[in-house]
Structures are given as structure tokens and as C-alpha cells.
């Protein structure tokens, strides 16, 4: 971390600070989405920004996700740096064509002639009792698509630095924010810093087992690590921070060191991010692993509304703790 003043900010504040600083720095950056201006989004992440930057740079749109995402692509190709706000990650379903068939492919299809420096900010995460259409974590889909980069900050510090990198990147970047983390506080330096993509961060060092966790699940992993410590198991928590590019090396080295790995992600477990990461580790650390890599993701059900049911579908500290304990006994 750079040697500057550091305050405690919430995740929402860190995101807002990154956006504001970038908009001050670069007049081509603008924000577009539903209720982003006076309302500052339903999560109030952008509160105050329209007051500073005006309605030509913080722009309310109709409820037309494909339309304004497409406009973002065209604007990005022609000299601007749009930050497109998709209120809930569940609505990515509506913009897959603009994102996948257009934004992700323009640079390649044109043989490098055009580029699409666009950021799409959206959410992931359940447990808000918002039911099946407002709770999904669909980042695995985007990670599957060549031409996109996918960012999953887990702390205010990471959020600010990664978002700045995203805005300065010349490619379409999908930036996922966990809805439940907007109020989580953490230290954030004043002023400018960036965090490179493709660089995992070891959130906690340990010796006995590696827990690779993304976004919201990093806190769950850290909680589990604390519980494990009490029974004498030392867990390392590794946060890839970007699923594409993926820092395979750091993940593999951690697993080699500890000889055991759990992969934890809030998306659906099947054909999800845990599959890629577990497979990378199982291959890369093949000769060092003492146990199969354990994957923990969301249950293979649409996310239910009822609180006891919803809670049963999401990975918990307890689940991670139990899994780690079982693996370490065996190893």
C-alpha cells in the first residue's frame, strides 16, 4: 500500500471515490444507468455524484438495459469511457448480446482496429431476501467469454484500486460488487492508486489449508479461518480479485504449500467459478495435494425467498470450517 493517509471507508464510498477521482481526471469518463443521478442508485453508491458532475456525466436511463449497454459500447468505440450501471447482476441476462457478441468481440473481429474501453458495474450476492431474480451471482458466465475481464473486489481497498484499473483499461471490464458488502468498512488510502488485474491477494497467511475465495466469500473464508485457528488449523485465504485474468500461479503455489485447498464462491457451484479454479489447482498442484480440492458454491437451486431456505443455499463460515476440518484430519 502506498504511503499516504488512510481512512476507513465503506465499500460504497470506496467505489464512489474511485469513480469521482477518475471522472475528475478524465473528462471522457461518464456514468449511465437507471436511477444513478439524483437517486444515486437504490444502494446509494453514487450519492452526490450528479451534484458534482452534472446530468451530462451521471445519466439516468430508461429501463432499457440492452439499449443503454449498446450505447455504452458505441460510445466506448468512439472516444468515451462509459461506466454502465446494471442495477442487479441478475439483469445481465438482458445484456448478454451487447456484452458478449458485441463488446467482447469488437476488438478481435476488427483485427484490433476498434476497441471498447467500457466498464460495466453490477452486483452479485444473495441473502437480502430478494428471491430468485434479484440474488444471483453470474460472474462465471462472463469469465467464460474471451474479450472480457472480470473483477470481484472483496474489500474497500481493493474496490477503489481495481475500479480505477478497470476504468483505465482499454477493454470491456465487468465489475461485480456484492450487495451485502456496500456498508462494510475498511482502510482506503487517500488519492490515486491502482491494483493490477490478474494478481491474487493473500488475505491471510496460513500453513495447513488454502481457502481460495472471491468477493463476498472472502469474509466468510476469513471467519472460517478464525474458527479453524481455534482448533489449531492454520488456513491461508487467497483472493484472486479477478477471475479473468486469473492469477493461476499464486493459487497453485498456495495449494502446493498447504497441500489442501477449498474453493469458495457465491455463484452456483455447478459449472461455476469454483470448477475452473478447483481444476486449475488440481492440475497445478497435482503432486502436492493431500486431498481432493473441495468446492463450495451456491446450492443448485434458484435462490429462494424464505429466510431459512435462502440461508441454506449460501456457503457459510460453518460449512467452510467443517469442510476444512474434515480435510485436515484426513490429510
Amino acid at each position: 500500500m502506498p504511503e499516504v493517509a488512510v481512512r476507513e471507508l465503506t465499500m460504497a464510498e470506496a467505489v464512489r471515490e474511485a469513480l469521482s477521482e477518475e471522472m475528475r481526471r478524465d473528462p471522457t469518463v461518464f456514468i449511465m444507468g437507471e436511477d444513478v443521478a439524483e437517486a444515486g442508485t437504490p444502494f446509494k453508491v453514487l450519492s452526490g455524484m450528479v451534484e458534482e458532475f452534472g446530468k451530462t456525466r451521471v445519466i439516468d436511463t430508461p429501463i432499457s438495459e440492452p439499449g443503454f449497454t449498446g450505447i455504452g459500447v458505441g460510445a466506448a468505440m468512439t472516444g468515451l469511457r462509459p461506466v454502465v450501471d446494471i442495477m442487479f447482476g441478475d439483469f445481465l441476462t438482458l445484456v448478454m448480446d451487447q456484452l458478449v457478441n458485441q463488446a467482447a468481440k469488437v476488438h478481435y473481429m476488427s483485427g484490433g482496429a476498434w476497441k471498447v474501453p467500457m466498464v460495466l458495474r453490477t452486483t452479485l450476492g444473495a441473502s437480502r431476501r430478494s428471491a430468485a431474480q434479484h440474488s444471483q451471482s453470474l460472474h462465471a458466465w462472463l469469465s467464460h467469454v474471451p474479450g472480457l475481464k472480470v473483477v470481484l473486489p472483496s474489500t474497500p481497498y481493493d474496490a477503489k484500486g481495481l475500479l480505477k484499473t478497470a476504468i483505465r483499461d482499454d477493454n470491456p471490464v465487468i465489475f461485480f460488487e456484492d450487495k451485502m458488502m456496500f456498508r462494510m468498512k475498511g482502510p482506503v488510502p487517500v488519492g490515486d492508486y491502482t491494483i493490477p488485474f490478474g494478481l491474487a491477494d493473500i488475505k491471510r497467511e496460513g500453513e495447513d489449508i488454502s481457502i481460495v475465495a472471491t468477493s463476498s466469500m472472502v469474509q466468510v473464508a476469513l471467519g472460517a479461518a478464525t474458527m479453524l485457528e481455534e482448533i489449531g488449523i492454520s488456513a491461508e485465504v487467497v483472493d484472486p480479485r479477478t477471475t479473468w485474468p486469473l492469477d493461476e500461479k499464486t493459487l497453485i503455489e498456495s495449494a502446493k504449500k498447504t497441500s489442501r485447498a477449498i474453493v469458495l464462491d457465491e455463484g452456483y457451484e455447478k459449472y461455476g467459478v469454483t470448477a475452473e479454479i478447483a481444476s486449475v489447482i488440481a492440475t497445478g498442484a497435482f503432486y502436492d495435494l493431500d486431498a481432493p480440492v473441495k468446492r463450495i458454491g451456491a446450492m443448485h437451486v434458484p435462490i429462494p425467498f424464505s429466510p431459512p431456505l435462502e440461508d441454506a443455499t449460501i456457503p457459510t463460515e460453518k460449512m467452510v470450517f467443517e469442510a476444512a476440518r474434515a480435510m485436515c484430519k484426513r490429510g
Partner: protein
Amino acid sequence: MKTETKQTVTASGTGSSEKWLRMYRGMEMIRLFEEQVNELYTRAVMPGLAHLYIGEEAVAVGICDALHRDDYITSTHRGHGHCLAKGAATDRMFAELLGKEAGYCRGKGGSMHIADPASGNLGANAIVGGSAGIATGAAFSAKHRGTKQVAVCFFGEGALGQGLLYEVMNLARLWNLPVIYVCENNMYNEYTHFSETTAGEILARPAAFGIPAESVDGQDVRAVHAAASHMIEEARAGKGPSFLLCNTYRYHGHHVGDVSREYYRAKQEEVQWKAERDPIKVLSGWLLGEKIATQAQLDEIHSQAKSEIDAAVAFALQAPYPGTDQVGEDVYA
């Protein structure tokens, strides 16, 4: 405790007094239901959020009273009114809102996804505009199977932003499907005035696809009912789709948690709608003026509805949550 209103079709807005009293009761029931929802939320008994329909009751009631029980509707995130008006029971609705096993969706859907095959409710939908295809598909199915059912697609004016609506309106006209698109224009897409999101003339949009379109005072249940009855008859007679624009207003916030609203709409605007254009008052004024009902009758309806709602809430509050063993059920049929 059941609110399965009798559903008869009448030719126009000049039906019997029984019908108007039924609609009066329907609107009262929605109002009281929603007030309880707000209360449950405020008491932190209700999980998640809810989008209240208060102020817009005449739309759901005026339209659904013109439908048969086996006609279809699709609904929105602001769906309690549609659901009740189409004939759902208050007890199972409250149970669903509280995530209880006795709810219409076994607690899995919640406020934004209530569905009820018995009353033809294909479900509330939390994707704005997301049910336009489903409603049109139900109309397709009715026509294909030759059942004379019709489908009503309720949506807010915010859904006019979604391309899907235009795709299915084109298809409904081409294939002459018995579907009525009902746009509830309450003037706000969440926190943004619809004039900032809606170019041109709303009615010109369906008209461009050859769909007859009409606008109506959404606070006057008789006007809504008359217009809807005509469109439903046309649909049933094989004449295809129509579009009904209902101008209305939501009294509360976008959702129960949206309490400081002055940055997007003036208090005065709210006060005025409530005072001058309240759908329940508009109907009661007419009922009393025409001597179709006495104040005592209306009071009786109110208190009956209130008792039903109270009992329904009590039922839902004591009803058990689903067991976590149920979480994996209903993923596949």
C-alpha cells in the same frame, strides 16, 4: 378468510349494484392488505422488501372483475393488487410474503413472485417487462387450444423501456392473440419521472403495431372496467390484442423502504392525488350519490374486509417456515 371474488363478465360499466359493491370491496381489500404489508415491514416482521399498490387499486379491480377465473394474468413486482383482484386468498398471500410454507409458493417466491394457477395468475415478475412474453404466450396457448381464454399483461410504464414488449406486441398482432396489455402509468420508474424515460406518445407505440390502444382514468374503476370489458370481449371474440393505458398514482414509495421521496416528487403532488383522485373515494362518492349503497353498507364492507385481513395476518404470523429439507424441492418438475 378467502377473497375469491365471484367473477362475472358484464357488457359495460353499467352493471348491477352488486357488481360495484364487489369492486368496492375488492379495492378496500387491497388497500387494507397493503396497509398491513407496510405495517409488517415497519415492524421488521417481513423479510425483504415490498412494493405497495395503494392508490392504484382501481386498475387491478376494474380489469380483473371483467375476467373469468380461468383467464390469465401476469403481474409485476407491484403485484399484490393484481393477485388479490384475480381471486387469491389473503391468508396464503400473507403467508407467502412472510416466507412461510403455507404461502402460495411454499415461501419460495415471496412478494415479487406470487403465482396461483387456481385463479389464472401466472405470476408476479421481478424483471421489469419480463412477463410480456409469458402473457402473450398464454394468449397464444388459449388460441391454439381453442379455449376462449384471454390473457392480461399488467406492467408499469417503466416497462415501456424494454424491447421485449415491442417484440411481443408485434407477434400478438400478427397472430391475432387474445391478450390485453395494461400499462399502469403511475408516473415514476422507481425514482425517475416517466417523462425523462419515455419519448413520444405512449399510445402511439401499440398503435404502430396495429394494436387498438386507449387511455383511461385509472382512478375511476368504472372507467377502467368499461374499457377493459370491451377489450376483453374483443379478444374473446377473436379480434386480437389491445392496449390499455391506465393513468394512476402510487401513494407510497417505490418500495416500503422508500420514505424520503422529496428529491424526486413533491409532497404536494402526493397530497393532491390522495385528496382528489383516490379510487376508493371516487367510487364511494358515486355509489352514495347514485344511492346504490349507503354509508353503513360501505362501512360494513370495510369492517368485514378488515376482519378478514386481520385473521389472514394472524394466520400467516403463526404459520411455520418451510423446513430446510424443502430447499431442493421444486427445482425440477
